[in-house]
């Protein structure tokens, strides 16, 4: 009993901080989402409007387009990051000259602030004067213009995200691979299993928890991407890269549409939880069931 109380005492500061900075703000956002509230409206006060904001979100073509673009962005970015990250992790598991140097270089993007990443990529991709359009034009005769081509802008945002965040996936998967026991691999080799069989039947199942955790982290990050994209394209051309995070930012900050913006935030949070739950039940739960 005594140790139980002491445990709660030690936990109390953490719980308090979580409550103050996690739970309370969420409850406030939830509360605001049930109001019409724009401080620069003729009536700047909060007006309770039941679920009107949520109803409006469902029929908001701009939000739905934004959601569609976000799903595509998240899919291409996260899948590419996981694939490249895995191969890089495998490469870094082996020995080659300059390994430590390359591993350090490879992780550098992680320490760059997203707003800087967006700025640098903007410099590199500005039509006609950026290095990337210049080289693509010189080498392949391609005209990359992220100011006019929706596909080009979308692709560049994905590539930028992959460049920025693949190192995180690599580091996580290196940690997972390092922790794997050698026995199952040796046993499989003795039994004549090939590299592909070893990957599908041993490596992948064993690193699945780390892989899913990594995908969760990247998925949640990608869903709320704002600063990089805002800096690079501003959400354009048109609304081509107006991903959900950018959409919420524009609704809440410049437009000060607090009620509606909060409703979108809550819905996006809900969708994120649902997607994560689906991933969890689809990838990990069956495995746990088998083990159980």
């Amino acid at each position, binding site marked *: 009993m005594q140790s139980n109380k002491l445990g709660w005492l030690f936990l109390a500061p953490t719980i308090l901080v979580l409550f103050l900075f996690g739970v309370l703000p969420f409850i406030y956002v939830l509360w605001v989402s049930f109001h019409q509230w724009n401080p620069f409206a003729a009536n700047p006060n909060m007006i309770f409007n039941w679920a009107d904001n949520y109803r409006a979100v469902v029929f908001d073509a701009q939000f739905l387009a934004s959601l569609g673009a976000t799903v595509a962005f998240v899919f291409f970015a996260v899948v590419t990051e996981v694939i490249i990250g895995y191969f890089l992790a495998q490469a870094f598991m082996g020995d080659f000259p300059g390994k430590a140097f390359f591993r350090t270089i490879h992780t550098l993007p992680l320490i760059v602030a997203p707003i800087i990443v967006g700025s640098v990529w903007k410099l590199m991709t*500005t039509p006609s004067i950026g290095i990337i359009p210049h080289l693509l034009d010189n080498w392949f005769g391609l005209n990359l213009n992220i100011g006019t081509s929706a596909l080009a802008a979308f692709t560049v945002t994905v590539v930028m995200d992959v460049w920025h965040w693949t190192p995180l996936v690599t580091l996580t998967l290196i940690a997972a691979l390092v922790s794997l026991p050698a026995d199952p691999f040796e046993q499989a080799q003795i039994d004549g299993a090939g590299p592909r069989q070893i990957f599908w039947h041993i490596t992948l199942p064993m690193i699945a928890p780390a892989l899913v955790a990594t995908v969760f982290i990247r998925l949640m990050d990608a869903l709320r991407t704002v600063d990089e994209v805002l800096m690079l394209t501003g959400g354009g051309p048109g609304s081509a890269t107006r991903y959900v995070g950018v959409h919420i930012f524009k609704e809440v900050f410049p*437009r000060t549409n607090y009620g509606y913006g909060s409703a979108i935030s809550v819905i996006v949070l809900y969708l994120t939880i649902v997607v994560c739950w689906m991933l969890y039940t689809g990838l990990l739960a069956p495995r746990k069931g088998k083990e159980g």
Partner: protein
Amino acid sequence: MTFTRTISASALALSVAASAAFAQDLTIENEDWWKEAGAQFSGVTLRGVTESTPPSNFISDVLAPKFEELTGIRVDVETTSWDQMYDKAIKDMEAGTGIYDMVYIEQDIIYAYLSRDFLVDVTAALAEKPELKAPNYDEANLTTFADNFRGENGNLYGIPMEAFIKVYLYRTDLFNDPEIQAAYKEKTGADLKPATTHEEYTQIADFFTEYMQGKGEDIWGTTAQAHTGHPASWYEFFESVAPTFGVYNWGIDAANNYSASVENGGTMNSAEAKEALAWWLHLRDIAPPESVQSTWTEVGTTFAAGRAAQGLVYGENAAWIAADDTKSKVVGNVGVALPPVAEGVMAAAEAGEGYIGYYDGGAFGLPVTSKQQDASLLFLQFMALPEVQEEWAVAAPRITLTSTYDSPKVAELDAELGGYYSMLRDQGKLFKGAPEYPFHAQVREATAPIFYQILTGAVGPDEGLDQMAAKAEEELTTLGYRK
């Protein structure tokens, strides 16, 4: 809005660092009065929040120390990014916490602040407390730009600290080149000189793009602030282009139930607005390719890199383009002119019934939530003293007092800038800031996505303006301004 412009302004600040002023360089008249007035507030600390720009930095680095030296009142000015500044200022005034005694007010947000009664009426406050009125502070000495910070009663709610106009810049080396002049004459039958009409401007732009591209030169006929996802393009059209066609105040008629569409009495989708958009879109098409990603800063950079023969450029950029050879390739080759206008627009502007371009800038306001209002009033007046203006104008290209134009250093700089300051003084009245709307960002953000669709070609220009007018009215109805 000025977030991106800050970068170029900062570059200018670096370039003038060698001539930067220090607090000890300033000589304040009536020092005894300031010492006496400040004595009652000795030990008080005033807190301000502003955007990090050269004019703001001059306040924190030069004016604040000098003020403290005289009065004993400490002034801490927090310089931060544009969005952070508004976030902090608005939350402070909204919650009534009284953290800030001075806040930066960009010209386009003043009406939103006034609608919320965030600001102290400076004119009235000084009239009520004549003992706080500084001898050398004179409201009448402020330029006409100060009118943008007056309330309905005509009183000042902010003391201007920076002011610029968006001007028509052209390359004098190209316009005065005999070979180019001859080629232009041969092609158009006209003499090559800065345009005064849209037709002339287009003709010049078409000529230069074709002529220079034909010679293999990376020079185009015009700039265009035509970003396809940033409000800079929206601003260029509604605040710099549409007014030159006679479409004012974004095409919204506040006196007519905030109507935007023609059918309800607005002009956002009028024939003039559609003509203006068609004109501008053509210019965008013959501008340097980077224009589709250009905001304020990039337009300045494009011109400074010598990639455009002419263009509409914000005044603060005009200064470094014309005078800073560490940043600009066209130093000494920059001419300044008034923007081209449609028939009747200049006459309307001269009669005070219209305007020909954008007058931008900002002021320092005193929040009603400030706990040190009297001490703040002293500092606001200190910022507007004639004797601090010359060094300030040289350190950051801004003028807010009429008397500053006559100072020797400013006259010298004016020559370098191709007469920019003279234009600001003599023709500044032809320009106007953002309309007196409290819903500035709200209507912009509601309509901007459609505007970006127009720029990408996903929506036709005429159809797009119709949609924007409808969307503006819908937003204004939601906000409760339109009944």
